[in-house]
Each structure stands twice: as C-alpha cells, then as structure tokens.
C-alpha cells in the first residue's frame, strides 16, 4: 500500500477533473449531426457488412459495436447510456493507464504526473475527440498507451499477441490506430524489453496489408476528403481541388505538418492559424494566449529533455525516457502522415498520450536539474515551472468546459434543426424514426451547459462567447 501512496495522491488530484468530464459526458445529449446517420446505418445494415472497406470512413469495429448496442433488445435510455459509456470508459481507462504507466513513487513524481495528466486532458487532440458517439480515436488512445506499456515492460510470452491484438482493435476503430505500428517500430529500434523483430514484422505487415486493402478496395480516393485549412483561412473541397488538385502534395505536406503543429503548439487548428490571426487582429482571448504559450513552452522543454535523454542513451544505453522520446517522434510522424488529406485537432489524438508522457519526464527532469542550480536561478526557474504547470491545469479545467459547450451545442441542434431535418430526410423513414425516438434526450432541459463565469475569468477556460447566455 505504501508503495502506491504517491500513485493514489496523483489519482486523487486528477480525479475531480476526469470525474467532471465523465459526469458531463454522461448527461450530454447525442447530437443530431452524424449520430443519427450513424444509427440509421447500423439499424439498416447487417453487422458484418461493415467489414467491407468500401468507404473512405472505414471504422468496422466501431460500427459493429454501435450496431450491437443500438440493435439490442433494450430501452432507448439504456442504449443511449451504453453509447455514452463508449466515450466515457476510454477516457477513464486512458487516465488510469497513464498514471499506472508513469507510476509515481515520490512527491515529485506525483506532482509531475498530475501536471502531465493535465497535459493529456488539456490537449486539443483529446478535447476534439470527446464527442459522443464518435469514439473512434478515444478508444485508440488507451489502446496505444497499453501497447506501449507492454512493449517497455519486462517480457512475457503473451505480449506479442496482446500488442498485435491491440493494434488490430485500434485500427478497426479508425485508421489512426496504425500509429501503434509506429510505436512497435520505436520499441524495436530502441530495444524495449518486450519488443522483438517478429513482433515488429507482424505489426508492420498488418499495417501494410491494411493500407493495401484500403487502396485496392477504394481505388478512387478524393483528392481532398474534407475542407482544408491553409494559412489563415479554410478552403472548401471544391476550391481546394480546383487550386491544388493537379499537384496536391505540397498541400498534403502542409496538412501533415499542421496536425503535428497542433499537437506541439496548439496551432494551427484544422490547418488554420486562428490564434495567431486573433492575436494579429487584437481580438485574442485569454484562453488563446494560454494555449499557445503553454504549448510552446512545454514543447521547448520537451525538446530539451528529449535531446538530453537521447544523448544519455548514446552513452549508457536505452532508457524508458529515451524510448519515449523516440516513440513521440515516430507517433507524431504517423499522426501527421495519416492526416495528409485534411487536418483536424482530433487526428492528433493518438500522439497525445505520448506528448503527455514526455511532459511527465520533462517536468521531472527539469525539477531534478533545478536542484543543482544556484539559489536565485532555482527560484526563477521553479516559478517558471509552476507557471507552466498552472497553465496546463487551466487547460484541463477548460476541457470540462469544452465538453459542456459540446453538450449545449448538441441540445441547440436538436431544438433548432427539426424542421430542416424532417424535410431533408423525408424519404428516409428509419432516419426520421430514430430522430423522433431521440428527440426527448436531445431537448431535455437538464443537458449540461457552460458555466457563466464572472467577467474577470470569462474567456480563460474557453471562448467567452460560449460562457455568456
């Protein structure tokens, strides 16, 4: 019990924020957009048909799971609750796995773990994925962390099978699960205890087979599947295809870097430098400064820690920290590559646990480095570290608000789009029947709403305009 003392301290410290996120998600109405169409799909199609990769949005395991829930012989309330749990359980599992993986053993470890969990919860890559019922990447994130945990743990005979299974499940939820292949390669390259060449070959072969299958089955991919961001504005698919369709590769490169940039610097968002634009316009709000400053500062510190860890690894051999640095680089590259077509915050989700893991090691390394410096520098640097951790905790609280904003948005969508939907989908009786059956949960007055913070705090956790009603 004593050995787990600091683990419990860290868990108790982050529990209120994680609990608030889970509690809010539990009462969030299912949205109209996407949710009803997804439920219509699973209501109409036989479960196994989702295994056929004939769509650009191939998420067979997600659809099969959703189909199992929606077609179950249970009340609407029970089915909606199960769909909500599909989003809540992965978030709880991710946080628990993260704390178990870093396993704090001292007060400093516990504090660094709490700060790193704030990084995990406050990152746009996680926040953008907290949308019921779109749980694809939220499921993939704990699976990726679990795979990494196994890879760097002492070897067991079942580890290879487990890592392969985790990869298959994650990929089955969304192609972003392929990022686990990058982790396996990172583990093998850095001689992680449970990594083997066979394992790397199997996972790499699986990844290649998956990509091949998708390309063969779906030969004609759209040049731009969704709107792209470029510089300071968003460009629709038609305009993007007209402008860049003949040679889209430079835009693809920009889009890949945009996703990576979003994980590391919170900018750009969906390829658009919206925070920079707001600062330039003089309309930036506190949360925008907080996001940009905390990300830039933490990424700079992580770069320092990463370089230090890798240099040390050259001298003394691979450590968990050095392996994590390599894993972060490779998983960032994988997330970037998998979002070549368009960039969204959520597409960086698979890299977020590893950015947070790097943050844990960075906070700890920075603190240990600080104890050696002269008193004056120690005080200044420790204050800087305190400020950085504080900003990330503000961001984590902001995630609770973001989930509330999503809930309010979903409720408003239910209240205001009924006429448009009933006319638009007049020839789809299944859609309309699902719309009718979920109307009550969508319009319930009890849906979570954003907090009306007093003026001085408004705009600190999330955009001010969503806090004033």
């Amino acid at each position, binding site marked *: 019990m004593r050995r787990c003392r600091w683990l419990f301290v860290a868990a108790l410290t982050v529990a209120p924020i994680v609990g608030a996120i889970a509690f809010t998600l539990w009462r969030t109405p299912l949205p109209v957009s996407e949710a009803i169409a997804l439920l219509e799909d699973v209501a109409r199609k036989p479960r196994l048909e989702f295994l056929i990769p004939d769509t650009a949005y191939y998420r067979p395991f997600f659809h099969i799971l959703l189909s199992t829930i929606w077609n179950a012989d249970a009340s609407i309330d029970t089915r909606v609750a199960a769909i909500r749990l599909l989003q809540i359980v992965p978030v709880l599992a991710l946080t628990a796995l993260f704390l178990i993986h870093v396993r704090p053993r001292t*007060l400093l470890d516990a*504090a660094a773990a709490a*700060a790193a969990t704030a990084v995990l919860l406050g990152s746009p890559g996680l926040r953008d994925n907290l949308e019921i019922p779109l749980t694809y990447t939220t499921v993939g994130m704990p699976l990726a962390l679990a795979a990494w945990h196994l890879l760097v743990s002492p070897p067991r005979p079942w580890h290879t099978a487990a890592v392969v299974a985790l990869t298959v499940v994650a990929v089955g939820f969304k192609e972003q699960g392929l990022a686990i292949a990058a982790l396996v390669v990172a583990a093998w390259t850095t001689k992680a205890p449970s990594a083997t060449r066979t394992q790397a070959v199997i996972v790499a072969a699986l990844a290649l087979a998956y990509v091949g299958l998708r390309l063969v089955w779906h030969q004609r991919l759209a040049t731009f599947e969704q709107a792209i961001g470029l510089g300071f504005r968003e460009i629709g698919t038609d305009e993007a295809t007209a402008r860049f369709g003949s040679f889209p590769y430079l835009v693809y490169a920009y889009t890949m870097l945009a996703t990576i940039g979003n994980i590391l610097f919170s900018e750009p968002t969906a390829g658009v430098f919206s925070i920079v634009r707001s600062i330039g316009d003089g309309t930036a709000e506190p949360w925008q400064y907080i996001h940009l400053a905390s990300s830039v500062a933490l990424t700079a510190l992580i770069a320092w820690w990463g370089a230090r860890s890798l240099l040390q690894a050259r001298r003394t051999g691979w450590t968990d920290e050095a392996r994590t640095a390599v894993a972060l680089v490779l998983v960032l590259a994988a997330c970037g590559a998998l979002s070549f077509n368009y960039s969204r915050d959520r597409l960086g989700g698979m890299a977020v646990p590893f950015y947070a893991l790097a943050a844990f090691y960075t906070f700890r390394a920075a603190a240990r480095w600080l104890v050696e410096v002269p008193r004056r520098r120690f005080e200044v640097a420790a204050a800087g*570290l305190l400020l950085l951790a504080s900003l990330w*905790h503000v961001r984590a609280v902001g995630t609770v608000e973001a989930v509330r904003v999503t809930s309010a948005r979903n*409720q*408003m969508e239910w209240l205001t789009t009924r006429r448009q939907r009933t006319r638009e989908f007049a020839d789809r009786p299944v859609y309309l029947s699902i719309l009718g059956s979920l109307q009550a949960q969508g*319009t319930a007055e009890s849906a979570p709403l954003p907090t009306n913070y007093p003026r001085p705090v408004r705009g600190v956790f999330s955009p001010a305009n969503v806090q004033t009603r």
Partner: protein
Amino acid sequence: MTETRLRSIGWWLLVPALVAAGTVLALESARLARPRSPWFAQPRTFTLADAIAQHDVARAYALLREGGRSADDPIVVSHPELTSGRGRFVSPLWWAVAMRDEHSVLMLLGEGATIQRVNGRDADCLAERVGDTAMLAVLRRADAVLAAPCLSPQTEFGVTEIADYRLGADVFVRFDRASRLIVAATRADPRFEREPLFTKDILLSGDVLPMAIALEARLRNEPAFAKAFFAADLTPHEYTKFVLALVAARLAHGFVKSGVIRSVPSGVHADNVMFVDANLAAVEAVLKEMGLE
C-alpha cells in the same frame, strides 16, 4: 539540500493541480446544490413569452411541450416600441422575431409555427419592417415566408382594449360618417357581396380578438376605405373597436328591453348599453345602413 529542493518543487508543482481539482470540485458541487444559480443557469422563466425574451430556447421548448399548446397559440407580450409598452396578443414566432432570436424562430418552426397575414402573426413582415435581413433569410430558408405581400402597419389590440372601450358621442358622429361612406364603397364592389364586411354572425361569433384583428386588417388594407376614414377623421383601429362595442351593446340593449334577460350581460359594458338607449334612433339608422339592424 537536494532533497529539500526536490520536495519544494514537488509541492510547488502539486499546488496548481490541487487548486484546479478544488476549483472543479467546488464548481460541480455548487452546480449540484444550486443548479438555478446565475453561474449555471439563466433566470427561471414561467411563460413562453419570457423564455423567448430571455433567449432560453430549451425552456421555451419545454413550456410549449408541457402546456400541450400549439406553436401558433397567441401569447401576451409587451415591448416598449413594438407594442408601445402595452400588453398585446401576438404569435410566439412574431415575438421571437421581435426578440431577434434566430434559435427560438427555428425551434418554433420545427414545432409547426406558421405565418399568417394578420398583424401579430406576420413574423416575416415584422422582420422586414425592423430591417432584420438575417432573420428574413432564416425564415426564407425554412420556407416560412408567405408569397402574399405584407399588410400595412397596424396597431395591435391590447388585451382589454375592446372590453374596456366606451362608446362616445363625438366618435359616434365620425363613425356614422365613415360607415355610410364604407357602405357606399362596398355596394359598388361585387367582392363584398361574396364576402360581406359586416354581418352579425361575423361580428358576434368566435373570439373577439382574432376577429377584431382580421376586421381591422380588412378595413386598413382596402384602398377604397381609405377615403372614408380620411373623410371621417377616424382610424381603422378606432372604427373596429367602435363597431364591435356598438353591435354588442345594441344586442344587449334589445335583450334587456324585450325582457329576455334582466340585466346587461358580462362582456358588454353597461355604459355602452346606456349610450345605445340614449341614441337609439341614430344607432338603429346607421346599423340598418350597414345591414346589421
């Protein structure tokens, strides 16, 4: 020294985590304990009109559903400019447009709200009148705008305006003049044979308020009557009130005199019956001219 510093940094780093945890814990506990606090919710409203005025769409929807009412059922509202600060009956959609609340407009349309060419129910005309092009676009996108042109601006009737109206001799003179001119105009027009302007059935059946609104709209929007009102120095609004009060008072007067009822019935003011009694010949003459006697 090293150990002390490490512990200090550990505490320093843990403090913001504890503050954040405490903040969320306090907020969520307060939310559970006092969900109606201004921090967490808008002020509670109990009428559809107030909910729309507060832009509380969810509450407006709940009130609509709870009451089992139609989205077109009139509500009483008051606005310093649009209703001159007096209580008026309008449709919820009209009020949502007046409050410039696009979300409430879309919610009401989803619940089956419609636009009619009657003052207080012509939400599209209100949007046009106040120059709210964005709202007009919303109504057009929802195909809610009527093809028929908007009626000319009309003053709404107050909740008790007709019930409280007193017949007076000065207005009666002008009413008499206007009525004779109107009757002359209608005789020359076959449209009024198909749809007579005045009949006892029209004037005394149904809810007085919608009927008053409809009658005034008809009087106001018929170009042939404009001369009559100009000549008599009377507005369609005043004329409508006068004719409704007069017909009701005349009928009550007849019942009392014939002994069918002992006293003036509720809904008709005794002063008005006394006015008819005092001016019976002139009243009968004008009503006869109008085809109502």
